[in-house]
C-alpha cells in the first residue's frame, strides 16, 4: 500500500509540469496546476510515510517485466519513508513559493521548462529513496540529477549560470559513474543488484563497493573536497530551486551512504572513522569559506557543505559504533545525522527562500549592498532569523536537537571507545564546537548586514515585503523548525523507524531511541527558554519608549555607508584562517601624508574548484588540443596510420604466438 502510494506520488510529481504545456507560456494556470499536483504528491508521500511509521507491513512493488533478467522493485521501509517525506513535500513548498517568485507571467521564457524540471526532479528524488533495485535506483538518480541540471540552468542566458550548470553536470556524471561502478561490483561480488542486506561478501569487495559508492554519494552530498559544484550551482539557481537542492537533493547523497552502509555488513572501523574525519573537514572548511563569502546564496551554499559535514560526522560515529557493537553510539550518531537531514532541509530551505525574497525585493544578493531589510521585509526577517538560529544549532530550535544527538554520540564514543577511535571522537567534539561558533559568527554577520541597520544602497532601500505565496512556505518551514525544536518527540517514531530499517538488530537488541535521547528535558528547556525570553522582553518593553537617532557615542550624522560591513565583520576570523583559506587581497595602500582614497577588497576562491580542478582541466584541454596535430587533414598520414596499425597489430599477434 505504501509503495503504491509513493509511486502514485512520484507519478503525480513527474506529471506536475505537463498541464502548463497546454496553456499559454505566461498563463498562471500552469504554475497553479504544478503546485496542486506537487501538493497531492506530498500528501501521498505523507500517507506512505505514516503507514510505514505506524508499522503497517508493506510488500514491494515490481515492474511487471524483467529487465535483463532482473526483477526491478520499489518499496518503502522506514529509511525510505524518512527521506520520502522531504523529497516529495519540499518541492511542493518550493512550487508554492515560485507562484510569486518565478511566475509564468514574469518569466515566460523559462517558467515552463523549470516547472517540468522541478517535477522530474521531485520524481527522481522519490524514486531514488524508494528504489529496491540498482536499475531503479540509478534511473531515479539520473533523472533527478539531470532534472536538477535543468532547474539550475533555468536562467541559462547568463554566462555564469551556464558555467555553474556545467560544473554541476560534470560532477553529477562523475558521481553516477562511480555508482554504476559500485553496482557493477556489487553484482560481481554477490550476483545481484537488489538493495537488500547482503548476507556475506568478501571484505575487500565490500570495502571497494562502499568506497566507490561513497565517492559517488559524497560528490552529490557535497562533502569536501568533492563539493566543487555545490556553491556555484546553489548561487546561480533560482532561489526556490536552491532550496530544493540544498534541502533534499544533496541529502540523497546521505541517504545513499546510509543505505549502502545498511546494505553491507558492518565496515571496518576505519570506514566510519574516515567518514567522521571527512565530515569534520567538510564542516570546518565549509563554514570557514562561508565566512569569507560576499554573496548571500553562495554563503548559504557553503553552509550546506558545513551541515553535510555535521551529518557525516554523525553517520561516521554511528558507523564506528555499529562496527564495534556500541548500540547507543550507533543510535545517537545515526539518529542525530538523520534528524539533521530533516532539520537542515527545513532551516536551509527556509534560509534560501528568505534570501530569495530579499533578492526578489532588491534585485541583489550582495550582502554588502543590502542592510535594513528587517524594517522593509519584517516577516521575511523574522523567518530568516529563525532559520539562522536553527542553522547555528542553537536552542530552542531544531538544529540544536540534532546537533545535540550527534554531539552526544561523539561524547559517548569519547567515553566508551578505546585507542585511536576514542581520540578521533575526542578531536571531533571541539571541532563541532568550533563549527558551531563560526556558524554563529557567520549568521550574525549575515543577519545583521542584510536585515539590520540601514540600507546601504538605493536598491536595498527599495525593498518590499514578499507576496503571500512566498511567505506561506517560509512560515510553514519556520513553524516546523520551532516545532521540532520545542517538541522533538514529534519525530521520534519516524526516526526510530528509519533507524530500525537501517539496522534491524537495533530493533531487536538495542535500546530505544527515546531512552538515549533526552528529548523530554530538551523540550522542557526549549519551552522554558521561549517563555523566559518572552517574559523578560515583556518586562523590559513595559516602559514607554521614545524614538531618536542612533546614539553611536554621540556621533549624530552617521551615513549608511559608515556601518560595519559584512566583510569587515568577518575579516577577523578570515584573517585568522588565512593560512588555510588563501584569501585573495586586493588593496590600494595608504601612503603619504595626505593619502588618496583607498580600497580594500577580498576574494575567496574555492580551494578545490578554482585552485585545483579548473587549472587542471585547462591544462588537460591544452594538452588534448595539442594532440589534434594527429588529425591535420593530410590523407597521407591517415593512410600511414592504417599501415602502422597493421604492422603493430601483426607484431602483437606474432608475439602472442610465441
Amino acid at each position: 500500500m505504501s509503495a503504491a502510494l509513493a509511486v502514485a506520488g512520484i507519478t503525480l510529481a513527474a506529471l506536475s509540469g505537463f498541464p502548463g504545456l497546454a496553456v499559454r507560456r505566461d498563463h498562471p494556470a500552469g504554475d497553479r496546476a504544478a503546485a496542486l499536483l506537487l501538493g497531492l504528491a506530498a500528501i501521498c508521500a505523507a500517507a506512505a510515510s505514516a503507514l510505514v511509521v505506524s508499522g503497517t507491513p508493506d510488500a514491494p512493488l515490481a515492474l511487471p517485466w524483467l529487465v535483463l533478467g532482473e526483477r526491478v522493485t520499489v518499496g518503502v521501509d522506514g529509511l525510505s519513508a524518512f527521506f520520502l517525506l522531504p523529497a516529495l513535500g519540499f518541492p511542493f513548498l518550493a512550487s508554492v513559493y515560485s507562484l510569486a517568485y518565478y511566475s509564468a507571467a514574469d518569466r515566460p521564457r523559462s517558467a515552463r521548462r523549470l516547472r517540468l524540471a522541478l517535477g522530474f526532479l521531485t520524481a527522481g528524488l522519490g524514486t531514488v529513496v524508494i528504489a529496491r533495485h540498482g536499475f531503479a535506483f540509478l534511473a531515479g538518480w539520473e533523472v533527478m540529477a539531470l532534472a536538477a541540471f535543468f532547474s539550475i540552468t533555468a536562467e541559462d542566458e547568463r554566462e555564469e549560470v551556464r558555467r555553474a550548470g556545467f560544473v554541476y553536470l560534470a560532477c553529477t556524471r562523475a558521481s553516477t559513474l562511480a555508482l554504476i561502478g559500485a553496482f557493477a561490483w556489487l553484482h560481481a561480488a554477490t550476483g545481484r543488484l537488489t538493495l537488500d542486506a547482503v548476507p556475506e561478501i568478501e571484505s575487500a569487495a565490500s570495502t571497494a563497493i562502499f568506497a566507490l559508492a561513497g565517492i559517488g554519494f559524497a560528490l552529490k552530498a557535497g562533502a569536501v573536497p568533492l563539493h566543487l559544484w555545490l556553491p556555484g550551482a546553489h548561487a546561480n539557481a533560482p532561489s526556490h530551486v536552491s532550496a530544493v537542492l540544498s534541502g533534499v537533493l544533496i541529502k540523497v547523497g546521505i541517504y545513499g551512504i546510509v543505505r549502502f552502509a545498511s546494505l553491507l555488513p558492518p565496515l571496518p572501523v576505519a570506514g566510519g572513522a574516515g567518514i567522521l574525519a571527512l565530515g569534520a573537514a567538510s564542516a570546518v572548511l565549509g563554514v570557514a569559506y562561508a565566512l569569507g563569502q560576499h554573496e548571500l546564496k553562495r554563503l548559504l551554499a557553503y553552509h550546506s557543505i558545513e551541515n553535510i559535514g555535521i551529518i557525516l560526522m554523525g553517520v561516521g560515529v554511528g558507523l564506528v559504533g555499529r562496527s564495534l557493537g556500541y548500540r547507543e553510539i550507533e543510535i545517537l550518531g545515526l539518529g542525530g545525522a538523520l534528524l539533521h537531514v530533516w532539520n537542515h532541509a527545513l532551516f536551509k530551505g527556509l534560509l534560501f527562500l528568505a534570501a530569495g525574497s530579499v533578492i526578489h525585493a532588491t534585485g541583489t544578493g550582495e550582502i554588502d549592498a543590502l542592510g535594513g531589510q528587517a524594517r522593509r521585509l519584517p516577516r521575511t526577517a523574522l523567518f530568516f532569523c529563525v532559520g539562522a538560529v536553527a542553522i547555528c544549532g542553537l536552542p530552542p530550535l531544531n538544529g540544536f536537537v540534532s546537533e545535540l544527538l550527534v554531539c552526544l554520540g561523539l561524547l559517548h564514543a569519547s567515553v566508551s571507545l578505546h585507542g585511536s577511535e576514542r581520540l578521533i571522537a575526542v578531536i571531533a567534539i571541539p571541532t563541532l564546537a568550533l563549527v558551531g561558533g563560526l556558524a554563529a559568527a557567520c549568521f550574525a554577520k549575515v543577519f545583521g548586514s542584510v536585515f539590520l541597520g540601514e540600507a546601504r544602497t538605493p536598491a536595498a532601500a527599495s525593498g518590499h515585503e514578499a507576496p503571500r505565496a512566498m511567505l506561506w512556505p517560509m512560515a510553514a518551514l519556520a513553524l516546523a523548525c520551532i516545532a521540532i525544536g520545542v517538541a522533538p518527540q514529534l519525530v521520534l517514531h519516524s526516526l526510530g523507524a528509519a533507524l530500525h530499517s537501517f539496522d534491524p538488530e537495533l530493533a531487536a537488541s538495542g535500546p530505544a531511541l527515546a531512552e538515549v535521547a533526552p528529548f523530554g528535558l530538551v523540550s522542557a528547556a526549549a519551552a522554558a527558554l521561549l517563555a523566559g525570553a518572552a517574559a523578560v522582553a515583556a518586562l523590559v518593553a513595559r516602559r514607554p519608549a521614545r524614538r531618536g537617532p542612533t546614539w553611536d557615542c554621540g556621533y549624530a550624522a552617521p551615513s549608511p555607508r559608515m556601518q560595519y560591513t559584512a566583510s569587515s565583520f568577518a575579516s577577523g576570523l578570515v584573517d585568522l584562517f588565512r593560512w588555510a583559506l588563501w584569501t585573495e587581497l586586493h588593496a590600494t595602500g595608504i601612503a603619504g601624508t595626505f593619502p588618496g582614497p583607498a580600497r580594500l577588497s577580498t576574494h575567496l576562491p574555492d580551494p578545490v574548484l578554482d585552485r585545483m580542478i579548473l587549472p587542471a582541466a585547462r591544462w588537460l584541454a591544452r594538452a588534448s588540443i595539442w594532440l589534434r596535430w594527429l588529425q591535420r587533414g593530410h590523407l597521407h598520414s591517415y593512410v600511414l596510420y592504417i599501415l602502422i596499425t597493421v604492422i603493430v597489430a601483426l607484431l602483437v599477434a606474432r608475439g602472442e604466438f610465441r
Partner: protein
Amino acid sequence: MSEVLNLLLVIFLLLNFWMLGTSRLRAVIHCAGAQGMLLGAAYLAMHGASGLRAIALGLAIASIKGVLIPRILIGALRSQPIRREVEPFVSFTVSLLLGALATGLAVLFARTLPLIEADAGALLVPTSLATVLTGFIVLTTRRKALTQVVGYLTLENGIFIFGLTLIEAMPFLVEAGILLDVLVAVFVMGVVVEHIVREFSSLGGDELTELRE
C-alpha cells in the same frame, strides 16, 4: 607453367619500381594498367585450363584492370591541363629505396609464414605483399589525389595476386563482384577526382586539408 608465372611476377615487381621511380603521372597510370594486364595473364596462366569460366574471368580482369580503369584515370587526367607531375613528398630516390625495403620485407615476411609446397618456390606471396606495400608507399608519399587512386589500384593488384591462390574457394559471382566493386570504386574515385579538379583547379593535394581536428 610455374616459370611463366614467375616471369610475369618479376615483371610485376619491376613495374612496382618503375611506378615509384617515374615522375610522369601518365606513366604511373600505365604502370598500374600494365599490372592489371599481367594479372589477367597470370590468372590465365594458372587456371586457363580449368574451363571457360576461368578464361572469361581472366579476360575480364585483364580488360577491366588493364584497359578500362587506366582509361578512366587518363580521362580524369585529361580534364586538367596543367602540371602532370607526380609531386611526391619525398624524392624519387627515397621512394625507390622505400620500395626496395618494402620488397625485402615482403620476402622476409613471406618466409616467416608457412607456405604450401606448390607456392614455396613461387614468387606469388612475396610479390603480392611487395605490391601491397608499394601501394601504401604511393598512397602515403604522393601528393596528388589521382596518384592516390593509382596507389589504391596497386594495393588491389597486390591483393589480387594473392587471390590467385584461392580461385577454387571463390564462387564465380563473388569473384565477379569483387572485380565489379574495384571497377566501381575506381570509377567513383575518378569522378571525385574530376570534381576535385573542377573545384580546386588542381589535382588535389594541399588543398584537401580543410577538414581537420
